[in-house]
């Protein structure tokens, strides 16, 4: 009986995560890269600002925000900042086609089973988390972001105002 109750508690505890808030430490799980055999993690970008973008190729709003993210990366992506895409609960081929279609140049990781999205407490895609150089979440944007949001909310936090 105790074992059954324990299993229920474990199941609820492991599934009932809430969305990360500003000030929380961002998870640093290692994930496979969308292309190739390498792996990646937020640890690789320690000391940089990172906009973590959860997306999937089947998600229509993700298609809408992808060009804005790419434009922002081209304008601000340097040694102090990068966008990192995390493709979640998606098919590899579909995701790779998505990256090619929108010409996304920023790093892409794969979260096939959605565990990392769960760790961030996402409730869908897309969702964006701005993580500071110390690994703390500074901004949370549930839903798609656009150029206006990125310029008004994200850019001012970057070194030199992101210029």
């Amino acid at each position, binding site marked *: 009986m105790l074992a059954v109750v324990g299993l229920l508690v474990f199941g609820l505890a492991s599934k009932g995560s809430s969305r990360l808030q500003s000030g929380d430490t961002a998870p640093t799980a290692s994930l496979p890269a969308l292309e190739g055999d390498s792996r990646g993690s937020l640890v690789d970008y320690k000391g940089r600002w990172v906009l973590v973008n959860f997306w999937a190729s*089947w998600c229509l709003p993700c298609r809408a925000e992808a060009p804005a993210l790419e434009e922002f990366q081209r304008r601000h992506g340097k040694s102090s900042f990068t966008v990192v895409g995390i493709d979640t609960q998606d098919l590899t081929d579909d995701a790779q086609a998505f990256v090619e279609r929108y010409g996304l140049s920023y790093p892409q990781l794969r979260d*096939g089973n959605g565990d990392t999205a769960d760790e961030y407490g996402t409730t869908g895609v897309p969702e964006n988390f701005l993580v500071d150089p110390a690994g703390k979440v500074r901004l949370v944007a549930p839903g798609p972001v656009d150029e206006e949001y990125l310029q008004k909310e994200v850019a001012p936090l970057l070194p030199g105002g992101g210029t």
Partner: protein
Amino acid sequence: MIRLLALIATALLVLAPAAAAEQPASLTEIEKQVMCPVCGTLLQLAESPQAQRERVFINRLIAEGKDEEQVKDALVAEYGDEVLALPPGSGFSLSAYVVPIVAFLIAVAALTVGVLRWRRGGSGGAGPRAAAGPSGEDADRLDADLARYDL
């Protein structure tokens, strides 16, 4: 007769999965065995965009000649074990099969011990005691009454 039936049942259990494995994979059958990870329901019941892509993926693998197990393996490679409606019989997922069996065995053992104690108690005097005979005046009166009816 019972042995014969048991033999037939065993043969069916052994042969049925083998026969199923030889059948060509079908989307309809696979949909009943895998989940739509985003919806949290069987793929058979899901209509989300992710579910539609999953069906396209399955159909593509079937068209390539993959059998049911190969299709499910490919789905696991994409989405993880969670995509299987029935968890695999290894690792932590094994508990999904082991826990009910262990719970059943514990229940049977507890029931057996309880029944044995109850039966032992009934014959050994630990349980409800047999009624003691009357004593004193009651015994005398009982003897007198019985004597009156002694035919």
